[in-house]
């Protein structure tokens, strides 16, 4: 059976497309952006989430750790994945929910059923958003899901890196009503250093979509990461690219938020940027806006 590894289903999503939506977060991403705000979605395979502040140290889980999968050290659980990867019994024993799997498996029927629950809220072009991780990493399966949802009449949006084969994009595009895609960094080398991959494929795909986007589905976004993507030069280059491709495309600058670091510890990862980075000031945001304006990018979305 076709299943998907999904790490969150957010109902009443207000910022991932038109109207009120349900956003599905698919696990796995080909990029590894230093600032990733959903680190639990990076790996494609399932993994353990452990929230130490929820843990009351009752050690109920240890009673089921027959192979020594976990030990309790310095008032925290320590994981020994080499000794075993089936944590279900330990998770069941945890009374607080501090210990859990990051994701769950859902079939297309499961998803259709879950989406259906909020059908009544999807008026005014609300609907379903694929997010992640990188939803396109699901490949062919995602087309099946998009088709199944479209048959039910849902408005579909995707938040994607477009780091995927053009053929796949071409085939899923007809089912999508809104496509949110990032141009994070224009310079190829900088892109490789900060996200782990080249941006050439991404830019080519964006170029293709914008040229063929007669229904204005595409919205470009740039996350402003201090010292990485927030330079005037970067925004100017992106603006220039958009101007040459489709100057009327809606473009949104997402100001930095400091929400990401909180999640890293839970999934046993390290946040590599400084935790003290600040969002851009109003003045700096306005400067970037006027820079884009001067370039002739007129359709700027300002939600910040």
């Amino acid at each position, binding site marked *: 059976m076709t299943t998907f590894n999904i790490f*969150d289903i*957010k*109902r*009443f*999503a*207000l*910022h*991932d497309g038109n*109207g*009120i939506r349900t*956003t599905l977060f698919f696990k796995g991403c080909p990029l590894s952006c230093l600032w990733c*705000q*959903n680190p639990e979605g990076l790996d494609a395979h399932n993994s353990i989430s452990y*929230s130490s*502040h929820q843990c*009351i140290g*009752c050690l*109920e889980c240890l009673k089921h750790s027959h192979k020594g999968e976990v030990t309790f050290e310095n008032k925290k659980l320590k994981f020994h994945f080499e000794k075993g990867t089936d944590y279900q019994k330990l998770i069941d024993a945890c*009374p*607080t*929910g501090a210990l859990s799997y990051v994701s769950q498996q859902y079939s297309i029927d499961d998803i259709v059923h879950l989406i259906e*629950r*909020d059908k*009544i*809220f999807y*008026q*005014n072009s*609300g609907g379903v958003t694929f*997010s992640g991780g990188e939803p396109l990493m699901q490949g062919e399966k995602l087309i099946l899901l998009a088709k199944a949802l479209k048959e039910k009449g849902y408005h579909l949006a995707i*938040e994607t890196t477009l780091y995927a084969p053009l053929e796949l994009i071409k085939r899923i595009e007809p089912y999508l009503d809104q496509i*949110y895609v990032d141009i994070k960094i224009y310079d190829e080398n900088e892109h490789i250093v900060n996200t782990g991959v080249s941006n050439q494929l991404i830019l080519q795909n964006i170029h293709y979509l914008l040229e063929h986007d007669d229904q204005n589905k595409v919205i470009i*976004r740039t996350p402003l990461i201090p010292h990485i993507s927030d330079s005037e030069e970067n925004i100017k280059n992106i603006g220039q690219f958009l101007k040459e491709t489709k100057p009327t495309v809606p473009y949104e600058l*997402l100001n930095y*938020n*400091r*929400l990401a*670091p*909180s*999640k890293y510890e839970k999934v046993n990862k390290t946040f590599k940027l400084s*935790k003290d980075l600040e969002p851009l000031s109003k003045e700096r945001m306005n400067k970037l806006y006027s820079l884009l304006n001067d370039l002739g990018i007129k359709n700027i979305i300002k*939600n910040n």
Partner: protein
Amino acid sequence: MDTKIIGNRINILKEKMLKEERYVSIEQARIITRVYQENESLSIPKKRALSLYTALRELEISVEKEELIVGNRTKGVRGGVVFPESGCSWVMNEIDDIPTRPQDRFKVREEDSQEFKTQIYPYWAHRSMEDIIKRDFGEEINAIAKVVKINQKDHAQGHICPDCETWLKKGPRGLIEDIKVQKQNATADQIEFYECSELVLEGVICFMKRYHDLIMQMEFSDDLKNVAKICDNLTKRPPNTFHEAVQSLWFLFVVLHMESNASSFSPGRIDQYLYPYYKKDINDNKIDSSKALEIIECLYLKFNQIVYLRNKHSAQFFAGFPIGFNIAIGGIDALGNNADNEISELCLKAQYDLGLPQPNLSVRLHKDTPEILLKNAVRVVARGSGMPQFFNDEAIINSLINDLNIDPIDAKNYAIVGCVELTTQGNNLGWSDAAMFNFNKVLELTMNHGRCLITGEQLATDLGGLDTYSTFDELEIAYKQHIDEFIEKMMEAEIHIEKAHQQCLPTAFLSTVIDNCIEKGMDVTRGGAKYNLSGIQMIQIANLADSLAAIKQFVYEEKSVDQIELLQALKNDFENSQVLRAKLLNKAPKYGNDIEWVDQLGIKWAEYFRERMKDYTNYRGGSYHTGMYTVSAHVPMGENVGASPDGRYSQTPLADGGMSPVYGRDKNGPTAILKSVSRINNSLTTNGGLLNMKFLPQFFKNEVGIEKFSSLLRAFVQLKIPHIQFNVVNKEDLLDAKCHPDLHSSLTIRVAGYTAYFVELASQLQDEIIERTSYDDI
């Protein structure tokens, strides 16, 4: 008119009002006591009418020179009026603490305190309604108090929507004419009623005239002179202009408060019955919309000048002096068409400008509510006062018709009294605040052999306990029996309460503005109204469903929790049972998450309770029905309940609202809450339901947010949920969330492509969000 001038007048009046200290006032108590002492031979209805008549002639009055709407029941604003006929033993016990008590303080002048203790109280001890109820049925009421809170023991019922339309159409003189006609063929009983009503209406005319006379002695501006003229006109004829109509309306409410000293006399659909006056003045070029707004804002200020002195216990249940001037705007008309008009918009605008606790502004929504009204209402919500609240015509009207046999024309014209209590307008003594029935205390007694978990006292029959029921069904059978046991006792108490009201607190004036009292020649407390309902509140199905779900799943299905161990843990308030408590809190499914079987575990008991109401008739011959709201009663009601299987500690608050989930347990977000709540059949909330939802102010920050909230409200209408209210989370809430994460675990931070719970954020980041959370951001 220049909005700056309006702003000035309103700001001056608002500032004056808020600056003035609140005092306990014994002036009316002094008058009432004197009248009673001088007229011992008269009947109580006559003494009551004469007392009101005398007060209308004698009470000190005042006018501020900026006022466009005048009138109050005390010389100072926001006075706490002592009202001896309904009850003053509690005043005697508490008067020294009123200035320092935790909730709703008033200052007390030393000489007033002395006079009350030596002159007023001694007359009323054993005579007031409070004393009579205590004497006749006090023990029985106390015996069930932990489970059923019987209300209206020491004050008049209030909670009524007078027939404002008729009042405006006829004025006191027109009503006197009606009475004279009816009197011609009246019986002796009726004649007494008519004489009382006539007397108080004469008093009202005199009261209006006194404001004219007072102004004429002041140094007056043209505006104020006009107000004097209006007062004088109203003594002679019904209002002709918008300004006159609003002034007349306010006099009506001042006098209703003087007569009953009760909470929640509500103006109802002000946009409907004031509109003809507005329209006429607009057509005649007598007024423009900004002048009308100024008059409405002056009325709003007046709504804040009458507050209500409650006893210490009651003040906890209904904190913040709520007096419940509820205004309902929008909705449909008698033909089912959209009824909103310019006045509806002005009412919203006035709330937007003033942001005061009164009126309690309600917007009636329906499937054809115009987008502009909806969005403007959401913009007012974004201001953070929790208002307006929204009511749903699609949910309410049919249930009033089908479940309460209300005439369709009255049902379509429904309004709200007090907080969320539904009523027809001008013809209903709804007795909506009759009692509160604590489902969770009953569950406690069912689990613990009829004994209180907190004191060990035997409060109900021993039908077994968690340690003896071998199946979930057995527990439910015992639960049902206990509910029956307390319903029976509650109903006996209700009869005694209403009887005492009839004896001690007949209300001749109120009866002149409630159909069909004049036609029947019968006081409203005796059943003179067209509709005679009594409403019982069911408290709280959220905790009940959560507790039952945990018991069902862990104890009887999975058998992963031992029943004796659970009972012991509850007895010990989870001391040394933290693992068990964590499991109950985190691993059992909870009400409000769109999980049907869990929601139904609570709802089915509300349905059972509602069904049982059909077996009883109230003392006025009307039906009992039910509501699901608490105001602030979830705190004191929670204090009566020991530790519960939903993981709640002993004596901590229950869920707030009435239909809302336990705060923090709603992990699936607002749409899931609405889905869960929509499973509550509307027949259960014909007396009013309350759904509270909290949001961070960032949600309302821009037009996109306003639009999405409008969509949410459209879905709310379609889901046929009767009520919703949005509270914008404030700084204090977030500070509390930081200290008590388990109480606020559902508070979410939402940005694009991301979701996180507030309590899971790093402390520094929480501080930053707290810093940003003020209304200046919006």
